[in-house]
């Protein structure tokens, strides 16, 4: 056949979409932040890579952080053992099995100093997950920094006070009451301006089969609850809203998760707008994502890596501010070193090789993603209104408005013997207690206990004084008992 002449051939384009949505012209950097909270998102600066690993002792944690901190890795995430979370010292007999399990054991500021030894805390973002013992832990952190000559107003990080995380255990824990949270807010606003005070998570939700709108309504309603409580306790909306963030576990259903994150930003902007905000930033929903895989016991450990890669991409397309790709290998076939490396590489690979950070919200316009965004937004809003009608999230759950199940069992996966850790912690505690000025300690603790009744002073400020004098985690927690009643 004779060669055809293609010289006149031209492409023809069309300028209309198949379907249009009326939220499509919301952008990034301008409320309601559909396409991201910053106008250039990852084009200028990609999300923060977080590497959380579970250690049993402050020494182990310190070694890991020092080894892994680089120019690109400036974020560390700290998780404590159950005893610490519950507010008990390592010499308390009923928590002996929990010392050093699933997290670091901290008894006093001395342990915290070991954890952060020689770390440039003023350059790091430290995210601290803590529940009941939030006050002594935060006090230890601030004192540890000060004693390393780091000014507290340079400290930046996230305090993840997740009121339900420890519902995973069989023990029912009181959440830190609003009184403690507002004292923390008050103190951090004055002294730790770079610290994001509170992060609300959905980690504990039993997510199998849960509809995206229900999950989102639940999380946002929780955020709203905190907003209202903060305002009622006299905190300024802008100083609270800008310090609030969310922590989400990313699930399967790649594009629905992306749509959910986009919907969440619009809804949160709408929610905050009803209050008397002055700062635009107050309307921006900040989110930290983790890709933990809870159901991976039966899987090939390497399948977890594949799923983690997909989920990290999901979080990035959703516009997360930070992502944690900790790979939990329940089969114990991967070495810790290997897991850490591949978990970190997952994010480095996405940032450096896939070029997805070259443009903001790359999935915008997609007929599927935009439709999902619209549907999730509409349905979640309807649920949120219903929740409000019932008088808030707690009442709504009691009345069965949200069919939500909270995970019933925490996975205490580290089964190794903790004898050594226990002995170490006990020795240190005994030494510490022998070396302190008992009069000063009693005075500091008495002040704290008195304030917990009267509310005349700031609890965190008094906890810091007690921490300086070497009061222990358990002692500070005991002194605060009145607040928890």
């Amino acid at each position, binding site marked *: 056949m004779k060669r055809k002449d293609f010289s006149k*051939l031209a*492409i023809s384009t069309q300028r209309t979409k198949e379907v249009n949505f009326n939220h499509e012209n919301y952008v990034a950097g301008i409320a309601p932040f559909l396409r991201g909270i910053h106008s250039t998102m990852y084009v200028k600066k990609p999300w923060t890579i977080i590497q959380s690993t579970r250690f049993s002792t402050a020494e182990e944690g310190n070694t890991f952080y020092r080894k892994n901190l680089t120019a690109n890795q400036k974020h560390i995430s700290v998780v404590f053992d159950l005893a610490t979370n519950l507010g008990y010292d390592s010499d308390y007999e009923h928590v002996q099995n929990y010392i050093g399990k699933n997290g670091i054991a901290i008894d006093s500021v001395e342990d915290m100093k070991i954890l952060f030894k020689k770390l440039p805390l003023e350059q790091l973002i430290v995210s601290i997950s803590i529940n009941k013992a939030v006050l002594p832990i935060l006090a230890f952190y601030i004192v540890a920094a000060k004693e390393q000559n780091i000014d507290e107003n340079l400290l930046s990080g996230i305090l993840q006070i997740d009121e339900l995380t420890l519902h995973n255990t069989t023990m029912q824990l009181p959440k830190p009451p609003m009184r403690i949270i507002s004292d923390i807010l008050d103190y951090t606003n004055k002294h730790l301006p770079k610290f994001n005070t509170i992060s609300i998570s959905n980690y504990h939700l039993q997510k199998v089969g849960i509809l995206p709108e229900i999950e989102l309504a639940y999380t946002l309603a929780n955020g709203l609850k905190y907003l209202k409580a903060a305002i009622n306790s006299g905190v300024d909306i802008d100083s609270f809203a800008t310090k609030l963030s969310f922590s989400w576990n990313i699930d399967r259903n790649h594009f629905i998760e992306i749509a959910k994150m986009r919907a969440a930003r619009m809804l949160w902007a709408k929610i905050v707008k009803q209050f008397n905000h002055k700062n635009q930033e107050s309307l921006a929903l900040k989110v930290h994502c983790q890709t933990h895989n809870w159901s991976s016991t039966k899987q090939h450990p390497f399948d977890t890596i594949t799923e983690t*890669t997909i989920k990290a991409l999901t979080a990035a397309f959703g516009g997360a501010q930070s992502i944690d790709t900790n790979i939990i290998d329940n089969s114990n076939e991967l070495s810790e070193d290997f897991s850490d490396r591949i978990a970190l590489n997952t994010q480095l690979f996405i940032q450096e090789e896939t070029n997805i950070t070259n443009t903001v919200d790359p999935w915008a316009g997609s007929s599927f993603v935009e439709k999902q965004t*619209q549907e999730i937004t509409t349905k979640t809003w309807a649920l949120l209104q219903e929740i409000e009608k019932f008088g808030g999230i707690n009442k709504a759950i009691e009345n069965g408005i949200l069919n939500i199940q909270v995970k019933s069992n925490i996975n205490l996966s580290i089964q190794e013997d903790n004898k050594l850790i226990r002995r170490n912690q006990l020795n240190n505690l005994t030494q510490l207690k022998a070396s302190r000025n008992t009069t000063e300690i009693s005075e500091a603790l008495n002040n704290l206990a008195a304030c917990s009744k009267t509310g005349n002073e700031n609890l965190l400020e008094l906890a810091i004084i007690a921490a300086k004098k070497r009061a222990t985690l358990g002692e500070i927690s005991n002194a605060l008992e009145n607040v928890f009643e």
Partner: protein
Amino acid sequence: MSDFITKDFNPSSAAAWKQKIQFDLKGADYNKTLLTTTNEGITIKPFYHLDNFEKLKIPTPQEDFKICQKITISSEKEANLKATNAIKNGVASIKFIVNQPFNSKILFKNLLNKQLEFHFQFYFLDETFIDELFKLLKNETVYYNLDIVGNLAKTGNWFNSLTNDFNVIENLLQQNKKQFLLSVDVNIYQNAGANTVQQTAYTLAHANEYLTKFGDDIAQKIQFNFAMGSNYFFEISKIRAFRYLYNLILGEYNTNSIAQIFAEPSLRNKTLYNAHVNMLRTTTESMSAILGGANTISNCSFDTLFHHPNEFGEQIAQNQLLILKEENNFKNAQHIVTDTYYIETITKEIAEKALAIFKDIEKGGGFLHQLKEGTIQRKIAENAQKEQIKFNSGELVLVGSNKYLNEQENIKNNIEISPFIKRKPYKTLIIPISAKRLSKTLEQKRLKNET
């Protein structure tokens, strides 16, 4: 959506967004800070907006992608067993890599009449043997993947001779009017370092040699074998741009077709050091293939460069596709990209540039002619060189290879097959287009220094 959002917030035009960005940049230069120019000559903007929406209408298949397992036949029995196991795991398609004629009765034992899909990759051209296969497989879905032009490009020689090769195909086409006989192996160009625009253009020009020779009947008998790199959105877009252009040129033959596309990960960006990162690469490369709308996708082991095929690596690779298939949103996902501002724009730009190159090639005497002249080889080498310079300077990153190294890693004792063996030079008709891995030289040096 009801008005509960729209009554509270005003929309922003593209211009308003740009203004906000410029405000946030605090004096930094917009173009310098935020634009990315690629080797294709495409400029990626920091955002895409409905205001500038433009798209091509892409002919897209309706059926979901099929997972394919590649199996090299060394013994028929063993290959049969591997195929049987893969099918048990949920694989719907098998690609046999064939170095010499085989006993087809043994190979296909218990594999026929099961709604499976078979692909071949022959390293020889044997009319009688293939004719016999026709008979055995006449009721099956088969892709023979005969690509005499691709073989010339890759090896530098015809299987036998120009006339003979074309005659064999002509005869086989007479015998088999139903199945996919031919292929265009674009993966040759990708693995040698061609960019997405070049790949798209060369695929068209390469296919047009067959169309010119065999006429419009051949249009529905060619499978296109793509290799996927990790440049997520460009890889999605190149498949779509190609589908559009293929139909466009078929219009000149008064026919049309939804191109049949087979995709697998590229080897160009795979590494010996920190080889587990290859697993991350093959994950997103498979995702790009699915979203781009490939019909059949096969994956490769993370250790394929330096280990013999092994169950461990193959299982992980297979599972990656199975995991994606189970991911609800990756089922029938070929339409998800529709109307995505960024992808539609890039698709259009790749198509525009590829069409221009295709026209140039046709004007210059066609693909075969430019292969003989060495023009195609030179253009690919130029782009490969550009990428190599970027890799060497660290601008183009391969994690664990030229950045974020694991200094302690020694691989000397873990190499079963050396990826550095030099083939003896042989006489060729044209300059062959050979695969070039970005990290090869770096690895050779590092391996030498291993204690």
